[in-house]
């Protein structure tokens, strides 16, 4: 069952690769995503037994992440047909694009369900490799450069991730245990792990997976890639792949907690979280390119989540909720930004203004997405950020909380300046009102609806799922 979760999209990808007509491929993408989502929801509702002596396990955290990934993936996939239809000149690459996109869906779920750290690593590396062609979709020099940087920085980061995994295994070995990379074994043996090795392992893992998450100072690839990649790819990377890397990080946090070294790990997380928020804020002020701005926003939100994980307690719940909100909020922003980018043929804020007149729906959604992502009520991210801040205050780390709030405000200012200059402006400054394709509007609208729902009403099943996942992350029985 779990294996199907991984293999189904990959198979569909192969099918799409084989498929003759571009349109058919795009529809294959949608169907693949839909099937995957259905499967994911099903397994989330009725968790299947572990497979391959507990290499693939779906525990509460996975039950939260897997459906999130695939539903967000589905919404992005819905966007694909209209998106590609608007780019007839890219017919040829359409083949690779569709195949890799689906494969990416599969590898991401692999990361979410695999409980063998080595296998998880393979999943991350694989998803990095399949996403490279997606970024190079446009075949422009700029996208080529972005891909190159993505690949090299990503590979170095992932290499460190592997190194860290080895350190983890060694910590068992040199702690006198039988060395293993099976998550359960490590958790069981955690109290006896050799502390110095464990600490070194966590540091290296944090840097390694932090590179994929996009924590400062390992975030440098994000603006380039999100700026150059197609909007939908940006949405999947920011909403999905980052989440996968976060999941991995949470697993290591669990091991540290089980080993009784949670404190060190958490303080590291707090430091890197605040650092990322700060860097993001600094680069959002006076940002000229609204797609790069979204990348920095992603860095900021990864920082928020990691900060929340570091604070712990209620903040962990908040961080998990924030993962949800961030994935869908990023979906809104990237897709609408894609619409505007296509409409204006530029992603510089200087060239785009008064979009609300020309593309009322896209621009309106973009604005709403901005308010959603910056954590204004009634959107879900308000609740999650509130939870994190409340947790910070409750844990008595007032300095951290103050910095957290201050940075949030700074980001709001920096991001708002760009968004508003894009959305508002004199009527007809750039041209008359244009007809918008409904298919490019429905997916972001759905994403926004989800974020709104998270803020207005967290259904009990979701609440309990979040609580269970938080309990797992915190290693609470």
């Amino acid at each position, binding site marked *: 069952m779990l294996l199907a979760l991984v293999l189904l999209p990959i198979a569909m990808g192969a099918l799409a690769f084989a498929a003759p007509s571009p349109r058919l491929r795009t529809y294959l993408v949608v169907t693949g995503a839909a099937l995957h989502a259905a499967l994911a929801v099903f397994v989330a509702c009725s968790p299947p037994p572990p497979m391959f002596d507990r290499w693939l396990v779906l525990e509460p955290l996975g039950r939260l992440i897997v459906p999130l990934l695939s539903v967000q993936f589905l919404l992005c996939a819905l966007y694909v047909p209209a998106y590609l239809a608007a780019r007839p000149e890219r017919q040829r690459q359409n083949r690779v694009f569709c195949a890799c996109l689906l494969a990416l869906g599969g590898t991401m779920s692999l990361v979410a369900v695999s409980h*063998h750290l*080595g296998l998880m690593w393979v999943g991350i590396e694989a998803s990095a490799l399949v996403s490279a062609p997606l970024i190079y979709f446009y075949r422009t*020099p700029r996208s080529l*450069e972005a891909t190159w940087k993505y690949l090299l920085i990503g590979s170095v980061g992932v290499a460190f991730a592997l190194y860290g995994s080895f350190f983890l295994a060694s910590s068992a070995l040199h702690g006198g245990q039988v060395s293993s990379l099976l998550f359960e074994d490590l958790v069981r043996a955690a109290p006896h792990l050799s502390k110095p090795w464990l600490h070194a392992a966590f540091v290296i893992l944090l840097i390694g997976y932090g590179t994929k998450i996009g924590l400062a100072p390992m975030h440098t690839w994000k603006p380039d890639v999100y700026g150059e990649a197609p909007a939908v790819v940006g949405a999947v990377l920011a909403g999905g792949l980052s989440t996968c890397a976060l999941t991995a990080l949470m697993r290591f946090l669990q091991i540290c907690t089980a080993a009784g070294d949670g404190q060190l790990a958490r303080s590291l997380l707090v430091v890197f979280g605040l650092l990322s928020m700060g860097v993001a804020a600094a680069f959002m002020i006076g940002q000229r390119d609204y797609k790069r701005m979204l990348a920095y926003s992603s860095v900021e939100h990864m920082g928020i989540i990691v900060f929340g994980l570091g604070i712990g307690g209620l903040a962990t719940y908040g961080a998990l909720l924030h993962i949800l909100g961030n994935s869908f909020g990023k979906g809104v922003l990237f897709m609408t930004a894609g619409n505007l980018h296509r409409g204006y043929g530029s992603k510089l804020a200087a060239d785009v203004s008064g979009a609300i007149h020309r593309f009322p729906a896209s621009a309106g959604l973009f604005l709403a997405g901005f308010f959603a992502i910056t954590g204004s009520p009634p959107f879900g991210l308000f609740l999650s950020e509130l939870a994190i801040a409340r947790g910070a205050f409750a844990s008595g780390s007032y300095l951290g909380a103050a910095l957290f709030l201050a940075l949030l405000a700074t980001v709001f200012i920096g991001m708002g300046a760009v968004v508003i200059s894009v959305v508002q402006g004199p009527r007809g400054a750039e041209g008359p009102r244009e007809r918008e394709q409904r298919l490019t509007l429905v997916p972001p609208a759905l994403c926004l609806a989800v974020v709104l729902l998270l803020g207005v009403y967290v259904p009990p099943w979701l609440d309990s799922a979040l609580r269970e996942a938080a309990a797992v992350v915190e290693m609470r029985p």
Partner: protein
Amino acid sequence: MSSLLEPLLVTVLLLNMFVLGATRLRAVIGASAAQGVCLGVLTVTAHGEITFEVVAIAIAAVAIKAVVIPRLLYKAMRDAAIARDVAPLVGVIPSLVIGALGTVFAVVFAGTLPFAGAHAGTLVLPSSLATVLTGCVVLTTRRKAITQVVGYLILENGIFILGLSLLDAMPFLVEVGVLLDLVVGIFVMAIIIHHVSREFSASTDAAELAELKE
């Protein structure tokens, strides 16, 4: 634990220094390949009993690290008409010094970590870490894209060394998966280098791309 282990690790360390000191691209690639061979032998020697998995991994390692990838790189050099010198950002002597410092750091750091039984006092961790750092030095101080690929390769070698002590932790499948990822990764990189040399004039190099910035 056979007596071959230590000499081989020392060889690896010497190869690191050679990589840092070399000024010819082919030499650097060759050195990385040689490291690959060492690793293959190490895989066997690190384990007393010879099992199928061990041999298979050793052969795979040698094949990939010492044959496939170097060939790939040579091919890329030819296709992209990459000049044969290394073109370092930081001179040879300074990079040697940095490498030496890295090795020292590795040894000191390894000193702070406890080792259980048989592994106590071996050079495994120091050499692994030193190799990783050498890879990083190459990655950050050598201008050309292809040298960066080599740097990445050396980095992976360093990681592989640490992996040796954990063969029973790392199941066969994963080991192969790791190697496979390595190949694919470097293959894709080579493709990109190829594209770059096609998109831009042959003289420009992937590592010189700095269009995307604030």
